[in-house]
């Protein structure tokens, strides 16, 4: 019942004005099929939560080019001319979070916590407007959880119950985002039957995944660095 034929069907219910988490780090481990389906839709005014928001015109940058994004919550916007241009023109809102704070806020959202104190950002612009507190001799700032209407994540293998297994550094933000959304959509390189994955080999238990489909992935490279053999 969780299995969907494609990204378009799996994203049903995602409407203009909603918040969407999108896994991936740079262009690695992105939910490419979901992003493409969104880019082909007329959904707009999205709040996108992602470590980056595409790079060099690829990944989520396609949504920026289409002006489908109202706000971005991320940690890094370098190497993204579409975002830079819209940001400088005041056409898009950008909320920068330290990467660890972004990850922890998403995990807190998924884990039902009301927020946490982190030492990261103390004394920096990140701390502005946030509660500061000394705990056992160290200063921390308060950060709130992040949740979203939809999460789009990508895994290497998934079973029909939604159990996921990631590959290498494509894991990144995908598992925690899957925990923090009202509806989590997973696209997998390979969809297998329930029972094919050993219980100890599952990176993300299937109860966090609402919809799953199989998709081919391009796996673009952002910086192709190689050495002599």
């Amino acid at each position, binding site marked *: 019942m969780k299995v969907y034929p494609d990204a378009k069907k799996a994203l049903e219910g995602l409407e203009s004005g909603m918040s969407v988490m999108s896994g991936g780090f740079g262009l*690695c481990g992105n939910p490419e099929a979901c992003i493409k389906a969104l880019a082909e839709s007329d959904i707009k005014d999205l709040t996108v939560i992602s470590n980056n928001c595409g790079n060099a015109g690829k990944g989520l940058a396609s949504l920026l080019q289409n002006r489908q994004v109202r706000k971005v919550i991320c940690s890094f*916007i370098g190497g993204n001319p579409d975002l830079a241009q819209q940001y400088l023109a005041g056409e898009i809102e950008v909320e920068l979070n330290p990467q*660890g704070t972004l*990850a922890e806020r998403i*995990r807190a959202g998924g884990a039902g916590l009301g927020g946490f104190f982190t030492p990261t950002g103390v004394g*920096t612009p990140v701390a502005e407007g946030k509660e500061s507190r000394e705990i056992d001799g160290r200063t921390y700032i308060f950060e709130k959880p992040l949740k979203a209407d939809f999460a789009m994540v990508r895994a290497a293998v998934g079973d029909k119950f939604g159990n996921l297994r990631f590959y290498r550094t494509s894991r*990144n933000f995908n598992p925690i985002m899957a925990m923090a959304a009202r509806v989590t959509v997973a696209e997998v390189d390979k969809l297998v039957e329930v029972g094919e994955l050993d219980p100890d080999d599952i990176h993300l238990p299937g109860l966090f995944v609402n919809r799953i489909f199989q998709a081919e992935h391009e796996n673009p490279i952002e910086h192709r660095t190689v050495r002599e053999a």
Partner: protein
Amino acid sequence: MSWSKAEQARRAGAELKDGDIVNLGIGLPTEVANYIPEGISVMFHSENGLLGMGPFPTEAELDPQIINAGKQTVTYVDGASMFDSSLSFAMIRGGHVDVAILGGLEVAQNGDLANWMIPGKMVTGMGGAMDLANGAKKTLVLQTHVSKHGESKLMQKLSLPPTALKCVNRVITELGVFDCKGDHFLCIELAPGVTREEATQHTHGDLRFASSVN
């Protein structure tokens, strides 16, 4: 005379101890991986979710799904592990990374670091820099001693927005090695041919010299 970039990186490599968990920032710090002293084995942490980063891949090894935090294709070594972003930053914030080697725009003598934004210029975002500067047991900064305009980047107080406060232990510039001591920098080593006068002239903060320094 002063150190070349490569010599700076080599000097930073000499700071590492056997068994260290090391995170290298983007830019010059990445080069430190090429200068690990003989007989020393360290594990490189990359905050996108990889412990045990190896060198760039050969064409045959190239895998688009194995990248570092600079989004470069890399390899992994024996003993490597992959994990999600929350565990990766639990490692950093929780003090499980021994050494972070970061680039810097300014360092203050009390250890404050600025390396993520210049107001009025395009902001790229802090990425993992704030977590790393705060969380690593030891934070080393690799940077130039003076800006292109000849202004010192070793400051009494930061002029740029901070990345983290009181986090830098040691700065390695083209002129030498400088520890952040609170109310002054302590120079513990000068690059060959660099004089105390030259270092003092280019340092905005208060600079003292260890007795071992020529």
